């Protein structure tokens, strides 16, 4: 039985699904996006974060069995039930820990717990095809359509991502919300967003959401002994985001939060 390495469990999560929701952040991700706000979730192995401000060390990455995670979360069940909430798996890339996720999903579904998935799309379909359709909803990240650009900013090509996207969309497009992290100088152009919108339309996606770039995770890089790749990047203007939002609405796709 494979244990899961989890670096954060966040109750009353805000951007991770409907109702009162607990987001579980699994450690490990195949991508290395320059703007990542959870750098402690990139490496699969537990690592130490040292906060200069509080002068305290923290180990990021705790081991759970599927059952122990379930037991920890299930006390929240009354809150989930009253609000249409539940759990969302996020990270890192949750599907890199396929065995753990499979088991956890099994236990949760047996007990009628709602489970959502946030994924960057870079995973091995064969390893997850037996359970990937069982989630209640998906947030699927699409960043950049151009493969070269994608590799430059995330470390990986986007071919696998788009293949997975198409496969997943074929199963149940209505359960998917495409998340576009809008990053200055990467994809914040009308052209880029339009490409993604086109891709969504082709795959019958009905919901898109935009997450504007922020650097609230900046300090974590330093705490991990790393350099923040997006140094000196300015935030997007409200008007710019509105403009992109309009593009989505014009296309006939719902703008989701």
């Amino acid at each position, binding site marked *: 039985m494979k244990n899961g390495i989890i670096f954060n*469990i*966040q*109750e*009353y999560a*805000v951007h991770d699904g*409907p*109702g*009162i929701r*607990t987001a579980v952040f699994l450690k490990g991700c195949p991508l290395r996006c320059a703007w990542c706000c959870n750098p402690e979730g990139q490496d699969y192995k537990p690592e130490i974060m040292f906060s200069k401000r509080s002068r*305290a060390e923290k180990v990021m990455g705790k081991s759970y069995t599927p059952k122990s995670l379930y037991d920890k979360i299930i*006390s*929240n069940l*009354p*809150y989930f*039930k*009253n*609000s249409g*909430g539940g759990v969302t798996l996020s990270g890192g890339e949750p599907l890199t820990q396929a065995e753990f996720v499979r088991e956890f999903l099994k236990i949760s579904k047996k007990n009628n717990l709602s489970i959502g998935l946030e994924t960057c799309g870079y995973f091995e379909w064969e390893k997850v095809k037996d359970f990937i359709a069982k989630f209640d909803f998906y947030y699927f990240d699409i960043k950049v359509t151009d493969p070269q650009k994608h590799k430059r900013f995330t470390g990986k090509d986007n071919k696998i991502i788009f293949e997975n996207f198409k496969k997943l969309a074929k199963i149940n497009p209505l359960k998917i919300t495409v998340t576009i992290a809008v990053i200055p100088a990467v994809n914040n152009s009308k052209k880029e967003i339009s490409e993604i919108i086109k891709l969504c339309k082709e795959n019958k996606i009905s919901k898109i959401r935009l997450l504007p770039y*922020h*650097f*609230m995770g900046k300090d974590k890089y330093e705490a991990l002994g790393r350099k923040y790749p997006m140094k*000196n990047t*300015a*935030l997007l203007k*409200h008007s710019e985001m509105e403009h992109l939002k309009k593009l989505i609405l014009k296309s006939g796709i719902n703008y989701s*939060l």
Partner: protein
Amino acid sequence: MKTICEKEKFDMREVKGEPSTSRIKIMRGRYLSSPLIIDSEYIKLYTEAHKKTNGLNALERRAECHAYAMEHLTPNIQDAESFVGSKTRYTRGAIPYCNYASEYILREFKNEEHAAQDKFTDIGLGGGIAHSKKLAKDGNYELFSKKFLLSKEDKKILHESAEYWRGKCMQDTSDAVWKKKFDKADYIENGWKAVLYTAPHDPAPEGRYVLDFETALSQGFNKIIEKMKNKIKKAKSTDSASVEKIYFWRAGIRTLEGTLNWVKNYAKTARELAKTEKNTARKKELLEIAAICEQVPANPARSFREAMQAFWFIYLAGHIEGAQLGYSPGRFDRYMYPYYKKDIDSGKITDKEVLELLEALRVKMTEIEYVASFSWEGLGSGNLYQNMIIGCTDENGKRADNELSMLILQSAINCQTTQPTLSIWYDEGLSDEFLLKATQCVKTGCGFPAWFNLKVYIQHEREKSGLPTSLIRKYAAMGGCTEPTLEGMSYGVVQAGFINHMKLFELAMNGGVDPRTKIKFDKTKIPKNYKELLTAYKLHLKNAIRNWQRYWNYVMAAHRQVCNLIYSSVLTRDCVERGLSLDDKGAVCNGTPTTLSTGMVNAVNCLASVKKLVDDDKACSLSELKKACANNWKGFELLHKKALDTPKWGNNDNYVDNIYKELFNTYCDYVVKQKNYLGEPYDPSMLAISTHTPFGKVCGASPDGRLAEVALCDGVTSPAPGTDTNGPISVLLSAAKIDHTKIRGGLHNMKFHPSALKGIEGSRKLLALIKTYFESPGFQLQFNIVDSCMLKDAQKHPENYRDLIVRVAGFSAFFVELSKSIQDQIIERTEY
């Protein structure tokens, strides 16, 4: 490097309101630009009458002094007001109640420290307080209690009054007895020095009750006077007890007549102002005001407008009689509804007009100020804790929210003032519309409404008073910040003295000796392990409670002698019926006096830490841990880290939650052992208001990892800032483990970032949170919706945030008028 908090992003609060009319803008603007002022007129008149009534029985003397003062007060009719009545001659005036306590005034004049606790108290610096300071610097005013203006003339009067009341005031009268007679007098005095208890009552804050507005509005004072006259006629004065009743009724009549004369003066003044008023619209208004004042509250109210004016006079008169703090309007949407419904149905009034009246009420209630000794200023943050509670059910359990409830919420959204604080009596049957509206109000970020679980209170009150559920449902109200009471029929709770749990813990650790002052309390064995520590703690807890309760019973005997609330008695069931004042147990409910404490969460975290480090992990000895705390963790960095990592309350961890349960039950058991001054068992409660800051300042570093002098926790069940690492649900799961029906009150603070509650989904989530927590069953929740960046900016630029309201443990306050330490505390509280 630009920060995330760009100026235009600062105000992320989703719901913003604006006063609905220019009248309200004027009223609110006037309030915000007014300084705080001492008005000595009332006490001057009261004292005059007192000098002339030597030999009169206590009840009638009290009535005569108060009535005489009332009928000679200068009416204060302010521009643009549509209903009138002010406690003082100024917008933000305060009455110094020398008849309650005068020593603190005399000490202030001598520039002496009020109490040992002054140096641990700080107060706000901005807003009206800054205004006062500026005027004091510029003109003919002095600064009193660091925030009130005092004119030379008022100072002279005040000084004379304070001198007169020396030895006669309630405090001195009680001191003369308990200081000599009470065998634990030393313990109490030491308790004040060590800050085991909050500072002595200067003046004792009256309050935490609600008058019988329903009867007063519908019958009018003349009828009540008539009733008392009939009682006197029928009374057979065959023994001293029945003579006392006659005194009481006579006192009641005098008080009501004096109050009606006060109202008549307002009518007169309104007419005089009308004569010289050039603006025809305002002239008409003044004449209408005069007519209404000539009608109510002498006679029953016949319309909503009359009911508003009547309510205000009835309410304010009670506020003037005592040094009120936590005196509240209660179930306004219940007893005012018939007047509203009649007028709306007949087209006599519109919702727009009702809304304006409700907004005006908010401003007028906020204008009321309170002056006390400096340390009490710090404890209460100058707040008046006027709590209006809406929603609830009727006696049959059917939802009681109505159109007026909705308008009350709207008025709070529109006209953001600190008073009245709003509360919701939560029941699952409340309408969706009402609940969503209440959530909208929460989202303005002003900190209210607070949410209270009706079912839990019903159970508590049934057990305490034996009254039926139907009655409790009908009259359930909030007295003060978070302590429920039955309106119109309950004794209040004078004085809100608190016990410091962290200081108790320190005593337990140190064999009964306070490490800071070296004062010796009861001797206990120096503990070597968790069990011994817990035993010592419980002993100190028991004694601190018992001594305080007994001391307070002495004080209340003096209250009965000197400050019996005649007016409030007459408007509380069944005082008139029985011929007994409140202090003579005339009310229906007399089990409301509570014993309060602060910082139980801190003590619990400390006990858990000791258990883990010393007993379980054997990471150190208890004496080593004590040494580390004594050194504020310097030189013990590794142990400090371990201490910070021990289980903390608020994470749904039974290791520490079970300790809380045990301590909580023990506390409740100890409290009810002692009878209050009315002969009923004291009721346990817990609160903080602002006590957690001075209480924390006098405590050294603690085994939970807390550094020396850091503020304690601010609620009953809210976790220590930064220690709730599992999230808000886990906090509530912890909080639900105690039996909330055991205490009269409860407080749980939660802070949310606006993004967590965004949109209708965010509102529904919040309601689901409240619903589920109350099902678990919890008792109370209150929310602060701000982001820390905004608050930090408000600290730097208070001038830009003059009207920013936030919630502090039991009340809402203008952020800029809070002391920096409270501000820091709010900023530090975990955000979700």
